[in-house]
C-alpha cells in the first residue's frame, strides 16, 4: 500500500477508536457499576496524564527536567489557591526561565 494509503488508514483507525465509546447504548452507561467507575476514571486519567506529561521522554524514557520544577511551582500555587491561569503561567515561566539560564534541560 502507498504512503497515502497507510496515512488514511491510520486516520480512520484513530477516528473509529474515538467513536467506539460513543456507540455504547445508554442503558449500559446508566448501570450503577459504570456510574461508579466513571466517577473515579477522570481522576485516574488526569493523574496519569500529569505523570506522563511531567516525566515522559522520547521512547518511554523517564526524563527529569525543567517540567518537574514547573510542576512543583504549580503545586505551591494550587495550595495557595491561585487561579487556573496563574498556576499554568507560573509553571511555564519557571520551566522557560530554568532553560534560558541553562540550569535545566
Amino acid at each position, binding site marked *: *500500500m502507498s*504512503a497515502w494509503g497507510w*496515512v*488514511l*488508514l*491510520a*486516520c480512520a*483507525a*484513530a*477516528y473509529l*477508536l*474515538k467513536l*467506539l*465509546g*460513543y456507540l*455504547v447504548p445508554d442503558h449500559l452507561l446508566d448501570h450503577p457499576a*459504570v*456510574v*461508579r*467507575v*466513571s*466517577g*473515579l*476514571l*477522570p*481522576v*485516574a*486519567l*488526569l*493523574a*496519569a*496524564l*500529569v*505523570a*506522563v*506529561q511531567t*516525566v*515522559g521522554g522520547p521512547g*518511554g524514557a*523517564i526524563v527529569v527536567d*525543567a*517540567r518537574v*520544577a*514547573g*510542576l512543583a511551582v*504549580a503545586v505551591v500555587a*494550587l495550595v495557595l489557591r491561585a*487561579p*487556573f*491561569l496563574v*498556576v*499554568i503561567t*507560573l*509553571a*511555564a515561566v519557571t*520551566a*522557560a*526561565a530554568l*532553560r*534560558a539560564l541553562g540550569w535545566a534541560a
Partner: protein
Amino acid sequence: MSNPVDSAPRVSPMRAAVRKQSLAVGVATGLYGISFGALSVAAGLSLWQTVALSALMFTGGSQFAYVGVVGAGGSGPAAFAAATMLGARNGVYGLQLASMLRPRGWRRPIAAHLTLDESTAVSVAQQEPDHQRLGFWVTGTAVFCCWNLMTIAGAVLGDRLGDPSRYGLDAMAAAAFLALLWPRLTRREPQAVAVGSVVVAIIFLPTVPAGVPVLLAALVALAVAALNRHRPAEPIGGATPVDPGADLEEQRP
C-alpha cells in the same frame, strides 16, 4: 428557575472561568502543532500528508508516533500500529464523555473527532453537566483550530519558529492537567486513585508503548471502584471544589 430572566443567555462567572480554562489549555496544546508540522516534513511526509494527519487523525500522541516511525525508516504498517496503539485511550475517553455529555444526532460524530486528552481533561474536571459540555466543546474546538493552523506553519517554516518547550509549554500542559485534577483530591478515595495512577503510569512508562500507561491507570480506577462497590457511589465531580470559579458559583442566583 422558571423566572424568564434565567432562561435568557447569561454570562455566569463560572461559565467564563470554564471558557478561560478551555482556551488556555487549547492554545497551549495547539501551539505544539508547530513541532508536529516541522517533524512530519523532516520525517519525509509531504505537506498534504502532514495536513491530513492533523485534520483527520487529530490526536497528537498518535501523530507524533506515526511520523516518528516513518522518520526512523519504519514501514507503513509499523507506523499504523504505533499510532493506533496510542489512540486506544481515546476509546476510554469516548466512553467517559458519552456517559457525561450524551451527545445526540450530528453532534455525536463531531464529538468523537474532538475527543482527546485535553478536551476530556477539561470536561471531566467540571462539576455541572452544563460546564462539562462547555469545557469539552470549547477545548476541543480551540485545540483543533490551533493545532491545524500551527501544523501548517510548522510544515512550511520548519523549526525556525523554535521549540515550544523553550517557552515552557510542556510544563504548562502538565500544570494544567494537575490544576484540573486538584479540586477532586479532597477525599480519600480519589486521592488513592490519583496516587495509584501516578505510580502505575511511571512504572509502566518505560516498558509499554506510549499511550498505554494512561490506559493501565484507568484500571486503578476500576480496581478501587470494585473494592468500594458496597459503599454508596458519589456524584461525579467530588465534594468541595477549590477551583478558581468555585467561589463565584455561590454568588449565582
